[in-house]
């Protein structure tokens, strides 16, 4: 029988690094905090707001995202978009993900 608590714990471990990749992929198009949170959740990458907001700023500091304040609307919004470096990293990480997937297939004997 599958221990669901144990499963949840290991699943969290497994997914921890994927939020960054999902962010970079989604942010090929500019987007802002809350909308991004909503979009990621609908895409199956549920992430806490208090994790995502600081993460966006960390990625920006690392030069992977650019940001721009949009003050056209009543509510000023900070829009983030993946930089060249961010897109390059996303591509590299996608390739790593595919490598992992094929390695796992080999391990499972599917090859």
């Amino acid at each position: 029988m599958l221990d669901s608590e144990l499963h949840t714990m290991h699943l969290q471990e497994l997914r921890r690094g994927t939020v960054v990749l999902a962010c970079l992929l989604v942010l090929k198009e500019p987007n802002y905090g809350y909308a991004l949170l909503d979009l990621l959740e609908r895409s199956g990458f549920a992430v806490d707001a208090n994790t995502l907001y600081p993460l966006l700023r960390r990625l920006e500091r690392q030069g992977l995202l650019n940001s721009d304040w949009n003050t056209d609307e009543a509510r000023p919004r900070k829009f983030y978009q993946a930089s060249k470096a961010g897109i390059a990293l996303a591509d590299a990480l996608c390739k790593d993900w595919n490598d992992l997937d094929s390695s796992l297939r080999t391990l499972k004997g599917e090859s």
Partner: protein
Amino acid sequence: MSTATTTASLTERYIQAALSGLPPQQRADIERELRTSIADAIDARVEAGSDETTAEREALTELGDPARLAAGYADRPLYLIGPAIYLDYKRLLTTLLCTVVPLTGAVVAVVRTIEGRTVFDTIGGAIGVAFVTALHIAFWVTLLFAILERTRGVRRTPTRHWTPDLLPEPTSHRAGLGELIGETVVGGIFLTGILLTPVLPFAKDADGRVINVLSPWLWDTGAVYAYVVLTAAGFVFGFVRYYVRWSPVLAIGGALINLAAAGVLIWVATDGTLLNPAFAQAQAWPSTVSKWVDVGLLIAAVLSVVVTLTQVVFGFVTKSWSTPDLGSMIRTTAAGIAGATRR
């Protein structure tokens, strides 16, 4: 904005709480973005049918503790000492506690005894000073490592490269047993010698009767028997240590035997006297000799207490009978300090 004044104060309080934990230069930009994000989250809930008060509560609840959010923005760790330097922290702390604490206690005990304080006063003072010393060491070492953890450039760098050369030496079983038997034989001769002193003819009085080297007080009070029995028990315990695995009860039991033996010596040195005054007189020794023999006895007893306590602490730390290797402890401390200052 669609938020009502009564509920706006909750958001306001939340934002103030989060910002207060941030460096001033980051505040303005984060405040602007956070305000929008919270308003967006509230609006989404209101559109889904909640009333504004509930929507705001839910949105803020989802954001969680503002201190946690601020730590995320400021990239601050939510722990005191992280895994990269924790082992160095633990080693340095253990080493200092095992060496400095017993030492300060011993120094206080010796000083108070020379000052002629009572046994109670001496032991109480030594324990008190040792306790305060331990508190200081624990506090300052922890503070030092907490600061190191929060200093940029220090974190995430493994402090000391571990190689197999750093593995502790195994204690040789056979050599250990030989040593133990040797100690026991010498100890047995020593104890027999003590019990035989009343008949050993080192000095005789005018009537030709033997004058004992050791004070008759020891026999009158039974101190000599207490010491012999406890020391013999200590040797027996040496074999127990050798054949039985370490356990907290055994470790404490063994330590109590040693401490009791040392206690008898302290009692002799403070309340009685070791040398027989008549013997000193017969040898025409100055009267101070007897006093200094007692001081020497006291120092030996205190050292024995220190060694015993160190062994117990070390035993509890390593969960084994192994005794602290002072040389390697000093090297570890020096390497730790050198490593900390180099960075």
